[in-house]
């Protein structure tokens, strides 16, 4: 393994650089995936049949809280990577842990929201609008759930092995994933919730 000391640890070997580049290619595919889900939602948004439409269903309070949690967690994972580059293991683990906890908080609110919707009679089967809504939100939520589990596994590895080229690379790639989920949420916040309520 050839280590290039002039680069940050996460880029320091050829394998590491390739992994980061490969992950960007994966994120490109994720952009296409979410674009198709948004497309379906935009086409079906007015087909709410006998069920509720967006302005009847959505409540801004929990959505603002979800937005705040994801924006803040995106900030803290950025701080974690910054601390990692300075070699501060404790600070990095603290910011990383906070990020995951906020991801968990986001999921708790989203699941509660889903229960509320279903309780109000808005289920996956009620209308085309709700099918597309649940698939779009659910795909994003499933990504956050996976991210929480993945991030937890990385955090354990950092605790055990410290900051080395392998764990730094994994952490950096995880940060790209987490920022990407925040970007997707910004569009859900704007074009699902705010547009639905305006």
């Amino acid at each position, binding site marked *: 393994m050839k280590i290039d000391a002039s680069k940050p640890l996460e880029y320091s070997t050829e394998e590491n650089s390739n992994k980061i580049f490969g992950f960007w290619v994966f994120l490109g595919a994720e952009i296409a995936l979410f674009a198709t889900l948004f*497309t379906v939602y935009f086409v079906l948004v007015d087909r709410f049949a006998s069920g509720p439409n967006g302005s009847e269903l959505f409540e801004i309070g929990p959505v603002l809280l979800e937005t705040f949690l994801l924006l803040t967690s995106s900030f803290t994972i*950025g701080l974690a990577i910054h601390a990692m580059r300075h070699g501060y293991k404790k600070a990095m683990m603290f910011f990383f842990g906070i990020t995951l906890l906020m991801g968990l908080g986001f999921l708790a609110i989203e699941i509660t929201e889903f229960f509320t919707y279903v309780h109000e009679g808005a289920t996956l089967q009620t209308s085309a609008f709700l099918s597309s809504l649940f698939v779009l939100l659910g795909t994003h939520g499933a990504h956050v759930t996976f991210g929480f589990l993945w991030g937890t596994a990385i955090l354990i590895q950092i605790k055990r092995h410290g900051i080395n080229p392998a764990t730094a690379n994994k952490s950096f790639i995880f940060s790209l994933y987490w920022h990407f989920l925040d970007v997707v949420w910004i569009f859900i*916040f704007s074009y699902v919730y705010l547009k639905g309520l305006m």
Partner: protein
Amino acid sequence: MMKQLFPIRHVLGYIASLVLSAAALAVIYLDLSRAANLVILAVTAIIQASLQLFLFMHIGESADTKKELYLNIAYALFVGLVTIFGTLFIFVWGWYA
């Protein structure tokens, strides 16, 4: 120590993203025209997405693959936008009808 843990660029980027989210709320609390609302949503969302991409994700920092990264993301965005607007053009804006 605090300065090293909280780089000013990240803090400003975070504050900017909170402010932009709050600004987007104008579409439900102010009584603006539909066109103005859609412009506000597009502008705030695009600036926020760019903040994440350039500031937090450091897309510009890997010198040897920089061009390929930009091309890859630009192509993904192109495919995504064509999917969204092409479909809207046919099914929602009435070209098919």
